[in-house]
């Protein structure tokens, strides 16, 4: 098996200067790609100014959804303009829709929104769940809830993504440290590494191909 390429699936820099510092730190920590929640213009500027670090940058939009219609509107609006579409759910009904919708890439569970995960949601789940490292670091109580989610997911061998959700370089951690946290929360170590490498990389590869027209439908590639 080849060397893993680690991806930080969610950073949200407040401005270009901080974004550049975060790119430098990510490169030092050993990441090969970053998914940035920012405007298209800033991402282009960032791409041109961080070539020396050898990072691949992808765009991401995060939508907070209260109801089914919020999700459907967001999917129709953003699907064809961003590399990654994440839904942060505020209610259980929204979470159920987001977990099933094929146009959504990940469903974020955050403490300021809806953070309860049950067996029914587990049974309908099709999209990976995204958990944020910054929530664990900043609020210790979240550890308990996160452990419950990770354990449920580990029982069914479903997909999980662990991203930093950092807004400053101090909130970023290396891939080994991050996967150790997931491991301590109850996921086996190989799956923890997959949560930072294989699963996000598959999503990015698929979405880039769809955006550039190389993939017509799921599984149908133009060669």
């Amino acid at each position, binding site marked *: 098996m080849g060397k893993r390429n680690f991806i930080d699936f969610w950073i949200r820099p407040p401005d270009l200067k901080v974004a550049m510092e975060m790119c430098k*730190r990510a490169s030092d*920590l050993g990441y090969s790609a970053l998914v940035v929640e920012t405007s298209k213009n800033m991402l282009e500027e960032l791409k041109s100014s961080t070539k020396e670090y050898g990072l691949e940058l992808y765009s991401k939009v995060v939508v907070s959804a209260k109801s089914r219609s919020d999700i459907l509107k967001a999917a129709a609006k953003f699907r064809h303009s961003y590399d990654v579409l994440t839904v942060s759910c505020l209610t259980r009904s929204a979470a159920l829709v987001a977990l099933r919708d094929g146009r959504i890439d990940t469903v974020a569970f955050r403490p300021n929104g809806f953070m309860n995960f049950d067996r029914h949601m587990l049974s309908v789940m099709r999209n990976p769940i995204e958990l944020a490292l910054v929530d*664990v*670091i*900043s609020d*210790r109580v979240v*550890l308990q809830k996160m452990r419950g989610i990770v354990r449920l997911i580990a029982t069914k061998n479903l997909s999980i993504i662990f991203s930093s959700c950092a807004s*400053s*370089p*101090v*909130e*970023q*951690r*290396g891939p*080994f*440290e*991050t996967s*150790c*946290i997931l*491991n*301590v929360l109850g996921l086996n*170590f190989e799956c923890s590494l997959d949560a930072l490498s294989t699963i996000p990389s598959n999503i990015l590869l698929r979405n880039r191909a769809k955006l550039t027209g190389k993939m017509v439908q799921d599984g149908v590639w133009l060669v």
Partner: protein
Amino acid sequence: MFRAKYRYVFVRCFPRDVKFDKSEIWKAIISNLQYLVGTLGYADVNPYLVKIQKDLDGLVIRCNLKQVRTLVAAIALVNNIEGERVALDVKKVSGTLKALVKKLN
């Protein structure tokens, strides 16, 4: 005869220009470790701050081989020391102190 196997972990502060007393960093790590795994888990990890003559700009911590990931997780959870926001990065993990110091040079 049973012989305990250890791992040596080298930890460094980020940002680099912030200087802390080693004991303050050690306290922050221990506090996080105890919160994460409790007293019994702490005993399993068996962390120990290694004092070495060589002047390194970080800490060397020894722990049980099988619990190194728990220690690394606790290190990653540290986000402030003496009220200042910092991150602790695990730079190297090695089986012997000699190899660790060699790798760092």
